[in-house]
């Protein structure tokens, strides 16, 4: 255990022993962090460790119940996000908070638009400023377009542009890279480094250790709402950090079990959809985990949606056990034994307001019904059974899913599909935004499923996950399959090469 090493610099921002409770739930018991000017500081911890609460305290969204909060050594107290912003703290939340109906320029300057004659907003000045800003960042975004429809990466860039234009002294980023691909992450980091070099203090939350170690100068670990330690990045190892995060050793992060691989269950032939993907052919065999890798936007999710029948396709066929699936008909896909765990579990995988039980049994409404009515008791028994088998951590299965942590929500989505006894399971980014402890549990679950003879197609942007879990890796680039790599031959370099190759060479 080390304490923060105070350099000659006075921390631009420091918070000591802050606590925050919501009713009976203590979200933060000892929030402690020091950010020096000109450093990049990583904040790590499992989901539920209190990182987001800590950030919201710094941002003025939550008022801490107790604790000592100082800027430049002077005590401060923020009542609203506006106070925090006025003090030079800029926060980029996990989900970008842009206003979809406003233009990009306006999104950057909302609430402090440059004013010209008569105190009225000068749109031309605003546009010019935004253009200048994007020129410094080296990104080609049109400041006059509306924000709706921007990619997540561009939205993050705009959030950063906003922070720069605010002349932020402290920039806080909550998992900024969760939805970005490799190239976009690099661009984001380039910007973060140049901000640091200009003397800003940067705090970022991440679950990706390569980023934490590649970017940060210091690392603070939190667990169960409390500060554990702050380390200088060079003097600490991943293993040590993981131990502090979980409070125990994690023997294997990717517990791949060897499974007997059987006959092809899912066969995709020549699948294509104009402008999205084309000529996609592959098999997934019983007991096999096939990883589908590629950059964000390569068309992986779209392929999964087409296979499952959510989207139409123009060419090709999908067969389960040799029987063709009707295109554009998810119900028949479910009947044929297909399950899909979607990328965005909040919006597509779960009904957030419904209970754990209801969600877990949602796919079984017909089976559970008698004379067209669903039996509450049977629903309950089944839901309870599954949440126990998957070790879903919830105070009661009757609580809404929204109250669970990300990892536990993912388990409920898995339960929902496992209850249908599927033959093929498509999982799209199964561990995005899930803390490391639960991540391993989700991996174990998936591995376990394959062991029971289910064919698994796993889409993932996290290379270690793909390399660790998959028996075979398919790589997509710009809507096409560019490589199939066996587990034994798979290396991070080969996958990345197949995913990016022509991107470098095309003008």
């Amino acid at each position: 255990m080390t304490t923060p090493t105070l350099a000659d610099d006075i921390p631009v921002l420091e918070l000591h022993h802050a606590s925050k409770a919501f009713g009976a739930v203590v979200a933060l018991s000892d929030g402690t962090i020091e950010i020096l000017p000109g450093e990049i500081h990583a904040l790590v911890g499992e989901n539920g460790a209190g990182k987001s609460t800590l950030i919201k305290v710094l941002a003025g969204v939550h008022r801490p119940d107790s604790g000592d909060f100082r800027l430049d050594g002077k005590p401060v107290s923020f009542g609203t996000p506006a106070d925090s912003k006025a003090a030079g703290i800029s926060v980029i939340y996990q989900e970008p908070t842009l206003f979809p109906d406003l233009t990009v320029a306006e999104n950057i300057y909302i609430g402090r638009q440059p004013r010209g004659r008569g105190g009225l907003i000068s749109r031309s000045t605003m546009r010019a400023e935004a253009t200048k800003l994007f020129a410094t960042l080296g990104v080609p975004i049109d400041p006059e377009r509306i924000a709706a429809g921007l990619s997540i990466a561009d939205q993050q860039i705009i959030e950063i542009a906003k922070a720069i234009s605010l002349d932020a002294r402290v920039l806080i980023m909550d998992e900024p890279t969760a939805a970005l691909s490799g190239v976009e992450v690099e661009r984001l980091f380039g910007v973060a480094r140049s901000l640091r070099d200009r003397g800003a203090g940067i705090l970022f939350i991440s679950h990706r250790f390569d980023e934490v170690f590649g970017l940060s100068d210091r690392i603070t670990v939190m667990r169960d709402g409390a500060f554990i330690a702050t380390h200088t990045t060079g003097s600490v190892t991943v293993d040590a950090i993981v131990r502090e995060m979980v409070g125990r050793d994690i023997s294997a992060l990717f517990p791949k079990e060897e499974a007997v691989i059987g006959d092809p269950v899912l066969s995709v032939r020549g699948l294509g959809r104009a402008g999205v993907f084309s000529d996609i052919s592959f098999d997934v065999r019983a007991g096999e985990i096939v990883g589908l890798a590629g950059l964000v936007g390569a068309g992986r999710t779209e392929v999964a949606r087409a296979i499952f029948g959510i989207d139409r396709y123009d060419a090709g066929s999908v067969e389960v056990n040799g029987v063709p699936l009707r295109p554009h008909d998810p119900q028949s896909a479910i009947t044929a034994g297909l399950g899909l765990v979607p990328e965005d579990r909040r919006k597509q995988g779960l009904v957030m307001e419904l209970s754990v039980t209801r969600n877990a049994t949602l796919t079984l409404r017909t089976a559970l019904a008698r004379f067209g009515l669903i039996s509450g008791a049977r629903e309950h028994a089944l839901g309870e059974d599954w949440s126990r088998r998957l070790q879903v951590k919830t105070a009661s299965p009757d609580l809404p899913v929204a109250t669970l942590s990300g990892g536990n929500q993912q388990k409920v989505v898995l339960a929902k599909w496992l209850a249908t006894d599927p033959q093929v399971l498509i999982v799209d980014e199964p561990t995005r935004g899930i803390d490391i402890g639960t991540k391993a549990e989700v991996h174990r679950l998936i591995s376990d499923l394959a062991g029971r003879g289910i064919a698994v197609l796993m889409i993932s942007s996290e290379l270690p996950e793909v390399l660790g879990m998959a028996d075979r890796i398919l790589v997509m680039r710009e809507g096409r399959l560019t490589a199939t790599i066996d587990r034994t031959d798979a290396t991070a370099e080969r996958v990345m090469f197949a995913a990016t190759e022509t991107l470098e060479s095309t003008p």
Partner: protein
Amino acid sequence: MLVVVTATINPLFLTPQGVKDLLLNATIVVILAIGQALVIITRNVDLSVGSILGLVAFGTGTLFAVYPGIPIILVFVIGMAFGAVLGAVNGLLVTIAKVPALVITLGTLYIYRGVNNAWAGGTQYFAGDRPRAFSSLSTDTIFGFPLITLLAIAVVVGVAIVLAYTRAGRDLYAIGSDPAAARLFGIPVTRRVLGAFVASGVLAGLAAVLYASRFNAVGATTGTGLELDVVAAAVVGGVAIFGGSGTVVGAAIGALLLTTITSALTALRVDKFWQQAIVGVLIIAAISVDRLVSLNRARKLRVSEARNV
């Protein structure tokens, strides 16, 4: 086109008097629609405007009856202040009780109407009770435009400038676009939404005074059902019902369009019930076009971004 067809079939429609009537009829809805647009842009709605108008209009009639010599300008000020108070009640209930505006203003629609009924009873005030100068506001013209129409145009221009070129105005769009993000961003959401409701009340108060000037009788049922015309005008004028986009110029044009259509259909002697059906079709058409445009825009952006990859 509608105007041309109607004018050929019923030549009375385009006479100076016909045009004047059309503008006069539109004026009150235009002013109400501007207020409504402000509220809808923040992802709220004000269903009580018809009742506010009724209450203030009756109040105006009462003022003139009780104080016959009262200065006209003072009547305007009192009417707008009264409207502001009624709007503030809406705004406070919406922002503090955090109940959807649809429910709150549906409630105040009935409450304000009930108060109006209790206050007015069977009493009605007629134009004869009011000074001639007041009524002439609606009959006098400058270059063929009725005075109150010019007033409405001034209001449109004023509010349009506030919405487009002041920070407070832009905040309304941000709030309607994503209320949660607006709060996180430190935009004073409560204050702005309250402001929009007060503005809607003030404009309803103004419309009410003009109503008393324009129409003969004000009583317990004045303005009943007007709120739906006003919401329709805003929506037809391109104000997105889920907030975040639209302009008051659009809302004003929507109000003018709806009034024109109603007048045209009347001039063509189309059955009153069919007129309503046509207005309904127009609302749905407006929303469909809006939806199509935004889908199209999203697709175009997707395609252009796909090329960037």
